[in-house]
């Protein structure tokens, strides 16, 4: 699902919701700079990815039966985008197949967790597949 809403309102919301991610020192460099990049060694994405760090808000969708989740909105840090995928940092572990909605200033997009790697206390790198194609321009706005 992809929808557009009032840009300023959304931007405000994203700024207000605290982001609990603790980025490890040696990862801060990863978040700098912007531009096209290739896939990492241990993963595979069908489309080129664009590295760009953005604040976002994550809403957990329907939880898995054995893993109930607290509902609400939580801050996250997007690391990269591609047409069908997104990489972001989050403060807790999410599990494969969990569904989330990512709110960015100009769009909100439904996605499924496909990968989660521990980076440090309160820092997990999530790989998401998007449920519909997204235009990079919209996501980066």
């Amino acid at each position, binding site marked *: 699902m992809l929808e557009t809403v009032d840009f300023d309102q959304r931007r405000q919301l994203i700024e207000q919701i605290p982001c609990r991610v603790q980025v490890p020192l040696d990862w801060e460099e990863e978040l700098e700079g912007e531009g096209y990049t290739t896939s990492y060694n*241990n993963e595979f994405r069908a489309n080129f990815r664009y590295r760009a760090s953005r604040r976002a808000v994550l809403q957990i969708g329907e939880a*898995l039966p054995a893993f109930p989740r607290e509902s609400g909105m939580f801050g996250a840090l997007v690391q990269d985008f591609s047409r069908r995928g997104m990489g972001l940092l989050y403060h807790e*572990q999410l*599990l494969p*197949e969990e569904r989330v909605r990512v709110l960015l200033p100009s769009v909100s997009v439904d996605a499924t967790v496909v*990968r*989660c*790697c*521990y980076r440090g206390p309160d820092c997990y790198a999530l790989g998401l597949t998007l449920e519909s194609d997204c235009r990079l321009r919209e996501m980066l706005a």
Partner: protein
Amino acid sequence: MSTTAESKLFAISLATLQPTEAVDWDLYILPRDTDQHILYRASKYPFHAKDLQRLLESGVTKLYIPREERASYQEYLRENLDAWLENSAIPPIERMETLNQVMRGVLNDSFRKPDTDKVVNRTIQFGRQAAAFLESETIRFDDLVRVLQHDYTTFTHSANVCYYAVLLAKSLGYEGDDLTQIATGALLHDMGKLDVDQHLLTKEHRLSEAETRQMQKHPTLGFRRLCRQDDLSAGQLMMVYQHHERLDGGGYPVGLPDDEIHPWAKICSVVDVFDALTSDRSYRVALDYDTAMESIERDANLAFDAEMLACWKQLISTNVGS
């Protein structure tokens, strides 16, 4: 059940026959000092307790049935399993052998054409039976290992990990429903291997980097297959997802630190590696217990929980349950 020299018949343990019930297949016997099987009892002809007793007294432990009756025999075993497991007239190790025979037969069938719902139902049933049996009976570890297979096919390995996980968990103080859940979680722990290219599982040489990455997806693939099953608990799913995590954070798929790994996954990881090392693999023969334990202990507190390892070491060197 093993194939006989004639290969049209296969051997079945006498302990698996339920006296008083007629069976659907002809039963053959191999008289002492001969290699010629003769018909002992035609199908549908009742087999009484006194017949069983007489055979046992004359030292017969196996009978033979036609090979084409294999499926029907498996079905018979499955239907009567609860009765055998509770029959204290049969020595525990023979009941264990029957349980293992049935479990391997069923897992083999279900893992070949994986229908996730069916596999989960059957593993829940076997998890319950294996846990209840191992919780109440005393079996020497040596005897247990002798009746298990060590060929490292996914279904054999899953069955072995199930028994070992129950024994380790029992020694750590788990009981009742926890043991049942751990047994089922262990049976399912490698289910993701069904979604990995099968030639990687039997490859004789070292896996390439790309193949290793493929192989390392199996905990995630297994979790994805199972995570929407209402009747599996978080602990069981974590046995599937986290059994290759290491305490030092160097494991996969997440690279979690010690305190975030579920204790049942830690149990699974100890006995998983123990079974892998003590089974024949396509690229090396099985290690003996001591060598396997030495190798595992080098990773105490790095990959494995030291307390669990100590408990496992103690368990394999003494009588189980005593």
